[in-house]
């Protein structure tokens, strides 16, 4: 019972912190006086979950976390490298976006994003790191947004973007640098922002829910440049 109350308390504190972020911003900017400056530019930084992006770029859609990469054959088992995989870490999708609001109901912008996987292979006898296998994915995506609500301290919008992802897979061997390799590939990217909400005037925070490379859920901050 106490434990449950403790968890609820923790959630309440975290939620309060998040909410207070935006209200604090809004209140802090209250004195500046708001005007719907159009046209205007803004720049923002966001963090999103890498769930869909990782499925696409790793090649094992949906089943990847459950796939057991055992060697396929006796040959692989017996004569394959005597190593084992350490944890594979994946970063969130970190993206920055520049937007231009030309009218009260739409904006256009460009997104540049990054996420990566970081994995190590260890020697099965000594535990030493024998190689690192890192994947870096860079996203470039033009985006368009339609504003459903464009008020002084809040904007509600949807959007969509299409672009490309540049994938760099590198293998770095600890003791045999001559075997290091880098593999480059391109693949199309997309993001459908189902609904997004932005709070604040010059300095603003936003949250978005959608489907695509930027993450199902993303949040961030930005700054609006007004003339």
């Amino acid at each position, binding site marked *: 019972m106490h434990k449950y109350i403790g968890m609820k308390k923790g959630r309440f504190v975290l939620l309060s912190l998040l909410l207070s972020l935006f209200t604090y911003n809004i209140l*802090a900017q209250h004195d500046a006086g708001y005007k719907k400056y159009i046209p205007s530019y803004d720049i923002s930084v966001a963090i999103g*979950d890498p769930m869909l992006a990782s499925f696409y770029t790793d090649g094992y859609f949906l089943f990847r976390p459950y796939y057991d990469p055992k060697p396929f*054959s006796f040959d692989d088992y*017996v*004569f394959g490298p005597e190593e084992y995989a350490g944890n594979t*870490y994946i970063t969130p999708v970190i993206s920055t976006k520049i937007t231009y609001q030309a009218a009260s109901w739409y904006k256009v912008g460009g997104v540049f994003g990054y996420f990566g996987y970081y994995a190590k292979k260890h020697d099965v*006898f000594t535990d030493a790191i024998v190689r690192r296998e890192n994947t870096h994915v860079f996203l470039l995506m033009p985006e368009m947004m339609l504003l459903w609500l464009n008020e002084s301290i809040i904007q509600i919008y949807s959007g969509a973007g299409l672009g490309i992802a540049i994938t760099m897979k590198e293998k770095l061997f600890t003791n045999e640098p001559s075997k290091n390799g880098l593999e480059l590939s391109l693949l199309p990217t997309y993001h459908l922002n189902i609904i997004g909400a932005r709070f604040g005037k010059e*300095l603003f925070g936003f949250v978005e829910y959608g489907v695509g490379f930027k993450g199902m859920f993303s949040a961030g901050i930005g700054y609006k440049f007004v003339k």
Partner: protein
Amino acid sequence: MKHLSVLYTLFLLFILFSFSSCIYENQREPQPTQSGKAIYDSWHTHMFTVLQGDILKALHFSYYLDTQESQKIAVEDSLFSLFKIRDLSNGVWGLFLGADKIYDINTSTTSLYHVGTEWIFKRTVSSSNHPLFSNSEIAYTITCIADSTWNISAVGDGNPFCYVSLQLQQLGPTQFDVSGEGRFGIQSLNSYYYETENESNTPVVFLSFTLEETAKSRNNFQNWSHGIISLRAYKLDGNERVTQVQMLNPSGDVYAVKVNYKGVSKVWSLSPNYYYY
């Protein structure tokens, strides 16, 4: 106030970042003896093919021949239910699956249980997946050298050639002791997915073995309860792996192997029967 707001925002973003970066795939447990275990598993599978798939048929056939006429049909139904038994001529018998002769048995018209008897037991179908690796037939020479004790030898194809040179002693209906040595050829790599492009007429990996201590099986070669075996898996490019395995039967139906590989030892449980592939 604005500066504080920015700092506060950055702090929250840092928290969000920390929560959204994640471990994608958990670390695997290091298994230094895994190669040795895989070599043993392969030997176990191939030895089973030789002993239960072929040699036990010869012993069963001798039992069938030694059975009284009135009992023969019952023995045939029990031990050769899939086969048709045909007397070809002068002590030569054939075991047929449909119209195909699978085994050709030259019995010299004497029981395999008589000391001094020598049988030629031929597997007549092409056996590129057989551990003795042959594109034509595999002929076992089985010689009874003592009471319920036989020397078994066979030479297959491959370069180097595959062979077995074993001594088998029967201690009960399903109880056997085995010693000797041999070399198996592995061609199709026991893959999850059968890859036809890998199919060739030569073994890819060779598996040499020597039974350093007599191996004992109490259930028709399905498990080994005792024995020490030295195993060497190698390819023609010079790549090789060597291991020594002790077969254990801690209790009842519990079987295990102690795998010694590159200076590391580990006991692998085999109960219930454990399969890699």
